[in-house]
């Protein structure tokens, strides 16, 4: 603790009217001025702005302030900003404290008097706390220049290529046998209608052959330890039962394999073999054996693939392999799952023929799909009328309340493809048309001229119960046309359900693995919804693509590139600052009871057998404070969260 007199400056932010509209700023200023050790209390319309920061910096120099309190927004938003301002004026950043009088005060009550009271309590707490705060030195650690990308969809592919093109090593881990993700299943992409494969497969090939990318397909991340700049990751490479070095990708095994199962890639509308590559353009072009369906694994007989493989690549003895990699940052791009509409029984999915999901239609209309791009009904005939139902599982209180953001646009794309290929009559059953991206509104306008019927109304049911002769043998789509104010019954040959984009089924486990929070919709939570939709609350872990929320391809690619830029920025600087607020043991006080040793979740505490005291490894310590609270001898100090500081703050809020 410094001997010299503590001189605190208090700065109150109006945040426009966000704070000043509720809290009486003048009153708060007068209150702050009278608090012990406060030398100056000022207010300004936006403390975070350049003039606001300059005010603090000048006062630090002129008034010899050695502590600063800013009463403004949440420290999550601007703690770094103000700490930096202090540092620039020569004050240790840990001598700054922020009072949150916006998110937790002015925004949650309309009662001005009570808000002002609460603001006073929060400012008094910050002033009392800052009095005891001590300068801390931030430590710098070197950054491992390797990057891990988890998920090989378009987001992961983009992020991996961006980092690798800067000649930094990337590990790209993909759980399925091939990279490509959902984008590889799409036919054309809106609004330009360029073919998805034509723009994606060259990128996939690049990934597969890139000297700076180590591609690990059919692999999953099992464990992540370490911290920003220095993560250790265990990856399970699942046994393919095919020797990657020997396999030539000739495909004979797949033709000879006698067992067929529903193809995941074809959304279940056609079959694949028990030994398979998901699709012909797969990267890597090396098959895997699906042990759940392979006759050899089930019954111990067959081995047809082995018999016909000229390269001798089939290896039934192969085992899962655990690979350990060390990386500086992680980019999580684990994508989405499509909503299963079976629970919406009144839409008839899986009960009525020719009620299909959008992903199934995507495969049906694709030139590389099972029908070669012919839009056909289950009986092989060509539909004459098709209804496209928007918002199936999205914007629905019963399933997902959010908008899936891509369905309106791909539904429009479907109209065009249907018109172009078979000229059938198309009905768009929508709630609102949301065509907000670049060129999207123009696409909507263009489609509206292609004699597509737009009916505004959520569909009530899809049924095969005919009332009139016209309806016999048809799928009857019943809806209220909310613009015409009447009930419509449309006899259709095919119904396409535009299903919601939802979080992956194992999103919870993945969130825990990487220590990422989730938002209310279940997707990964970004650090800030506007200013930092790339970082997470865990330093060094970034997110991109649909795992953070539904988005289209341009947004996904932009976010993935941004995540790559963040990883590259860390690499280019070569070091990062890590938490200075760690725990410290006073060896004089330590009784050597070792209670803390087992409590530490990061194994940062070790026991010195000679001196019979515990020691904390500051690089491993993350400053949670669990040992501090547990130490019966009060021998452990949680720096920046000392008992003295916390108690002072508690006393402060109780003024």
């Amino acid at each position, binding site marked *: 603790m410094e001997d010299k007199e503590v001189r605190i400056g208090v700065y109150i932010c109006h945040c426009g009217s966000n704070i000043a509209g509720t809290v009486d700023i003048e009153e708060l200023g007068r209150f702050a001025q009278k608090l012990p050790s406060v030398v100056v209390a000022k207010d300004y319309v936006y403390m975070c702005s350049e003039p606001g920061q300059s005010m603090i910096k000048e006062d630090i120099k002129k008034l010899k302030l050695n502590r600063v309190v800013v009463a403004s927004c949440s420290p999550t938003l601007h703690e770094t900003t103000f700490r930096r301002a202090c540092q620039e004026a020569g004050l240790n950043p840990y001598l700054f404290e922020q009072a949150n009088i916006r998110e937790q005060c002015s925004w949650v009550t309309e009662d001005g008097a009570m808000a002002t009271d609460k603001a006073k309590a929060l400012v008094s707490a910050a002033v009392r706390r800052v009095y005891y705060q001590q300068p801390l030195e931030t430590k710098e650690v070197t950054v491992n220049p390797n990057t891990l990308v988890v998920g090989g969809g378009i987001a992961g592919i983009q992020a991996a290529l961006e980092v690798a093109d800067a000649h930094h090593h990337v590990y790209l881990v993909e759980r399925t046998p091939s990279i490509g993700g959902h984008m590889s299943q799409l036919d054309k992409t809106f609004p330009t209608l360029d073919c998805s494969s034509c723009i994606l497969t060259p990128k996939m090939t690049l990934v597969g052959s890139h000297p700076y990318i180590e591609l690990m397909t059919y692999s999953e991340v099992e464990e992540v330890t370490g911290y920003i700049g220095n993560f250790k990751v265990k990856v399970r490479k699942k046994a393919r039962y095919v020797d990657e070095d020997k396999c030539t990708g000739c495909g004979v095994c797949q033709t000879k394999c006698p067992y067929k199962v529903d193809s995941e890639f074809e959304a279940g509308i056609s079959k694949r073999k028990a030994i398979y590559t998901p699709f012909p353009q797969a990267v890597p072009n090396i098959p895997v054996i699906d042990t759940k369906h392979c006759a050899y694994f089930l019954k111990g007989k067959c081995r047809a693939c082995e018999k016909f493989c000229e390269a001798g690549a089939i290896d039934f003895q192969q085992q899962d392999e655990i690979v350990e990699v060390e990386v500086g940052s992680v980019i999580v791009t684990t994508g989405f799952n499509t909503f299963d509409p079976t629970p919406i029984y009144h839409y008839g999915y899986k009960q009525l023929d020719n009620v299909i999901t959008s992903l199934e239609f995507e495969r049906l209309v694709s030139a590389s799909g099972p029908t070669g791009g012919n839009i056909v009904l289950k009986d092989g005939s060509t539909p004459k009328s098709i209804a496209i139902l928007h918002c199936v599982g999205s914007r629905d209180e019963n399933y997902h309340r959010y908008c899936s953001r891509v369905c309106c646009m791909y539904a429009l794309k479907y109209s065009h493809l249907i018109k172009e290929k078979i000229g059938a009559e198309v009905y768009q059953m929508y709630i609102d048309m949301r065509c907000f991206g670049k060129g999207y509104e123009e696409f909507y306008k263009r489609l509206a001229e292609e004699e597509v019927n737009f009916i505004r109304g959520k569909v009530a049911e899809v049924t095969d119960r005919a009332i009139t002769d016209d309806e016999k043998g048809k799928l009857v789509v019943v809806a209220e046309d909310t613009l015409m104010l009447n009930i419509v019954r449309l006899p259709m040959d095919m119904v396409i359900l535009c299903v919601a984009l939802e979080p992956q089924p194992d999103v919870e486990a993945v969130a825990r693995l990487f220590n990422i*929070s989730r938002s209310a919709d279940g997707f990964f939570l970004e650090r800030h919804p506007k200013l930092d939709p790339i970082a997470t609350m865990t330093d060094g872990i970034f997110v991109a693509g649909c795992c953070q929320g539904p988005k289209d391809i341009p947004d996904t690619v932009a976010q993935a590139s941004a995540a790559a830029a963040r990883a590259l920025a860390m690499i280019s600087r070569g070091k990062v600052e890590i938490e200075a607020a760690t725990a410290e043991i006073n060896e004089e006080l330590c009784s050597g009871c070792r209670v803390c040793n087992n409590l530490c979740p990061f194994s940062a505490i070790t026991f010195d057998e000679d001196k019979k005291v515990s020691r904390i490894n500051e690089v491993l310590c993350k400053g*949670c404070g669990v040992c501090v609270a547990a130490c019966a001898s009060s021998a452990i100090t949680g720096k920046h969260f000392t008992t003295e500081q916390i108690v002072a703050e508690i006393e402060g*809020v*109780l003024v």
Partner: protein
Amino acid sequence: MSFEPKIVGLLCRWCSYAGADLAGTSRKKYAPNVRVVRVMCTGRVEPTFVLKALEKGADGVLIAGCHPGDCHYVEGNYKTLRRFLLLKKMLTQMGVEDERVRLEWVSASEGDRFATIVGEMTEQVRKLGPFPRNGGNNG
């Protein structure tokens, strides 16, 4: 003048503090009676902090952290739970009403939940009246 309870909130910075921020960002209105002290993890909360708060003028104390399994520090919240149960036993013996000291799990996305808990707790503590300090009648 009606009694306005003072409640000290001890919130972990990763989940519950972010949840409390979210309540604000979504302009959720709730009783302004809770005053928040931010800690890195509820695992840092010493039982004495709760006693100190009650001693220094709090009518209630709310400890809030990440849901079990979601702790940023793996299992700090489990340790909090263990300590909390012991603390509650002691508080009960000291005659401190159950509603005055609460442990809740609030995630970063549960702004609504935070607002609901604070509202509920404020009303319960309001009914109980001010916390009798200095040993109540013996003071």
